[in-house]
């Protein structure tokens, strides 16, 4: 734990909106070590993107309230000065957004946008040095004919190529941590694999840590070592990727993994969906926010609707789950999910 690069503790984020206070993230704690890939999975609105953007302090300053801490290499990104945050954005922690079509400034050439990201953290670099670095990055992320394409505008690139440019911008300062917010969701399946491969190969080069936010469990299985499953703004399961796929420990994870075992009668491995819709973050249900959709809640009892379950270590696999069921029950059902 001492070697962790990023340590997020008790992160709470809420937004004041005309409809009420949106509790986007509640009591989220996790750590990321150098070189690690951490997957964060969950439905839309589960708080995964807000968690990630909090680390860079990207949430709107006018209506967001953020508490807790996010210590990155010794600096708490939530409480340090604006200048300190700015000095770390792009240099120590960089971000890749979901939609490469809208993530690039349409008014400037891609070369200028990559160079700008480098220059802001290397103010003494000469024009030639910046240019050289930009060409380096374009080659690294696999843009063909970089000497020609460096002076083109974003709209002249395909979606996959634009995401490569965004990655080039993110990695131009060799950050210690890359936060990738659904980096492949907007791309074709074949391009998705290329982009993931690219990120992994660049990660290997300088022991960069990656936080990969996605709702695609396949992607997580492929690239992550550890996984956080988020629901209703909370972490409901924290596990190694093997443990999650072998024996998930939270009813929501069971639902996500598709086949849901049942206490009463054995339904044979049919594909199921998680019934219902995610909770409104304005009027979160009391107790476990997953309880209204959980088919085990009624058999566990009223505790599910009165008390928020805390993350606890389950069994021997080292998984953590926020569920009121007993360890034995969880292990029993979880192992059936695998089968």
């Amino acid at each position, binding site marked *: 734990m001492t070697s962790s690069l990023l340590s997020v503790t008790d992160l709470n984020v809420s937004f004041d909106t005309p409809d009420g206070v949106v509790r986007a993230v509640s009591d989220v704690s996790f750590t990321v070590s150098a070189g690690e890939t951490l997957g964060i999975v969950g439905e839309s609105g589960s708080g995964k993107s807000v968690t990630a953007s909090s680390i860079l302090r990207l949430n709107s300053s006018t209506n967001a309230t953020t508490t807790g801490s996010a210590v990155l290499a010794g600096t708490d990104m939530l409480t340090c000065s604006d200048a300190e945050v700015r000095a770390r954005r792009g240099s120590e922690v960089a971000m890749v957004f979901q939609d490469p079509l809208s993530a690039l400034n*349409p008014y400037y050439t891609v070369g200028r946008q990559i160079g700008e990201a480098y220059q802001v953290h290397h103010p003494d670099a000469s024009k030639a040095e910046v240019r050289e670095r930009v060409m380096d990055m374009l080659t690294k992320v696999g843009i063909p004919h970089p000497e020609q394409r460096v002076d083109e505008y974003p709209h002249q690139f395909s979606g996959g190529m634009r995401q490569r440019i965004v990655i080039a911008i993110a990695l131009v300062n060799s950050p210690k941590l890359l936060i990738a917010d659904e980096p492949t969701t907007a791309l074709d399946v074949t391009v998705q694999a290329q982009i993931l491969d690219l990120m992994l190969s660049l990660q290997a080069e300088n022991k960069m840590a990656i936080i990969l936010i996605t709702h695609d469990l396949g992607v997580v299985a492929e690239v992550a070592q550890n996984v956080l499953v988020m629901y209703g703004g909370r972490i409901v399961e924290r596990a190694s990727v093997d443990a999650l796929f072998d024996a998930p420990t939270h009813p929501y994870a069971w639902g996500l993994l598709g086949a849901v075992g049942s206490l009463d009668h054995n339904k044979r491995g049919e594909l199921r969906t998680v019934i219902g819709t995610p909770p409104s973050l304005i009027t979160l249900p009391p107790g476990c926010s997953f309880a209204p959709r959980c088919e085990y809640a009624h058999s566990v009892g009223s505790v599910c609707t009165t008390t928020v379950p805390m993350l606890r270590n389950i069994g021997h696999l080292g998984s953590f789950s926020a569920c009121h069921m007993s360890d034995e029950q969880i292990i029993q059902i979880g192992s059936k999910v695998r089968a």
Partner: protein
Amino acid sequence: MLVFITRRLLFAVGLLLAVSLFTYLLFSMLPADPAALTCGKNCKPDLIEANRVRLGYDKPVLEQYWLFLKGIFAGRTYGTGATAFTCPAPSLGYSFSQHECVTTMIANTFPVTAYLSIGAFVLWMLLGISLGSVAALKRGKWQDRLATTFSAVGVSLPTFYIGLLVLFTVVIWLGLMPFPHYESPFENIVGFFNALILPWLTLAVLSAASYTRLTRNGMLEAMNEDFVRLGIAKGLKRGVILRRYVLRSALVPIVTIAGLDFAALLGGAIITESVFSLPGMGRMSIRAVVESDLPVLVGTTMVAALFIVLANVVVDILYGVLDPRVRTKS
């Protein structure tokens, strides 16, 4: 780009021809006899007829239009012999009630309108864009409320009301300055500014209102763009993000509307010129309407149309300069 500009200019010429034909035909259909208006009330029929022939109103409308068009390029001579007189090219006709070539009249009045328009334009762009930026940056705070209130009030108040109010307050009530009397900037620069400062402010405050709103909305919209977030995530300074990312993308619609607004103003700020007694094209047009001075009406309409069409071409070209996505498509 050159092909694009050439094509736009050719199109503009065609458009102007169409506008001129339409304007000429429209005014020739007015129930006013231009020849009868050339002399006073106790005018003799034979004098009217003589004037009709002299000014060419005896010819069919299309031939009249042709002579008008030819006059623009070749100048035009009215009458024959000793009474003949010539309006040199580009001739837009001859005002029988003012006994002057329309082109000369426009040349005399246009500078006033141009000074008025340019000054007001500069003021309102500065005022509108800065107020809009402040409102966007201080969204929801009192600065924003103040700016949006100003914008709502400004958009709803008519020019003649604000103009008269300003005139009354500053000149009559507070007596801060004498009643504005236009003077050429080359003869009396102080008098020039004295005469124009109030109309400039009036026009600027009114137009700035809509630019405040335009800038505010454009910037707020841009602030939600992913690429602005990426700019912040790069570690760029606030000022750089505002300039290169936020204002930059709010600029395109502002430039579009600004170009057209400015051109419309150049065609004559009719109400402002009338309220502040400025001898510009707008006031000349009003007089021409009242007196059925058809050649002047046709002439000023043509000039106004010319500015609008030119502004469209300029805005189109600026689009390409401002937005690389437009540049490569054309």
